[in-house]
């Protein structure tokens, strides 16, 4: 069964680096890995997308090992406003059928 797996929740403190890992064993060969951030009662918001190795933008980095069966979202210096749910999204092949698979989300709580 194709699925993605993320930790249900994480806690951290302001100024710390936070790493959230998503496992996706059945990722499709040509598909990207995308991470989203969602605040309560809002739609998810795109954070970062990558295919392999490392991608960095102004808000996060994404680390993808060579086998692409997992990915790690890295938030460099978190603040209270980074408290949100973070989702990974990948495309996966199951019995030759392509599916977009969302993780169940990681609830990140940042403490002062």
């Amino acid at each position: 069964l194709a699925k993605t797996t993320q930790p249900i929740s994480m806690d951290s403190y302001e100024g710390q680096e936070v790493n959230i890992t998503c496992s996706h064993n059945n990722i499709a060969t040509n598909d990207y890995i995308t991470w989203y951030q969602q605040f309560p009662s809002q739609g998810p918001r795109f954070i970062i997308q990558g295919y392999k190795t490392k991608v960095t933008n102004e808000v996060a980095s994404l680390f993808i090992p060579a086998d692409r069966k997992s990915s790690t979202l890295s938030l460099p210096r978190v603040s209270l406003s980074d408290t949100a749910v973070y989702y990974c999204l990948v495309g996966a092949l199951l019995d030759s059928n392509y599916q977009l698979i969302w993780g169940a989300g990681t609830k990140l709580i940042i403490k002062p």
Partner: protein
Amino acid sequence: SQTIHQWPATLVQPVGSPLSLECTVEGTSNPNLYWYRQAAGRGLQLLFYSIGIDQISSEVPQNLSASRPQDRQFILSSKKLLLSDSGFYLCAWSVAGDGYTFGSGTRLTVV
């Protein structure tokens, strides 16, 4: 720039009543359009997606239907709502190779 509009923001409907949620996209042509549902504290469930006018694919058998009468309009409907239809409904669009852009969502409570 591309924008996505979704309304209403909140809706309370009695069991058995009809439903119509509308989503429109601006600033892009021929987008892929999606309806997702999110139960309280849960992840995203894809309900429908559309690659073009009148081209709708259903991911989950249910009490809902979707239509795309115009290129940038996507409508989610039900003839008779059930209690289990309560949730947070999200419209999204994408263009091939890019990520999703989500609307602000509609919180539906069926009573």
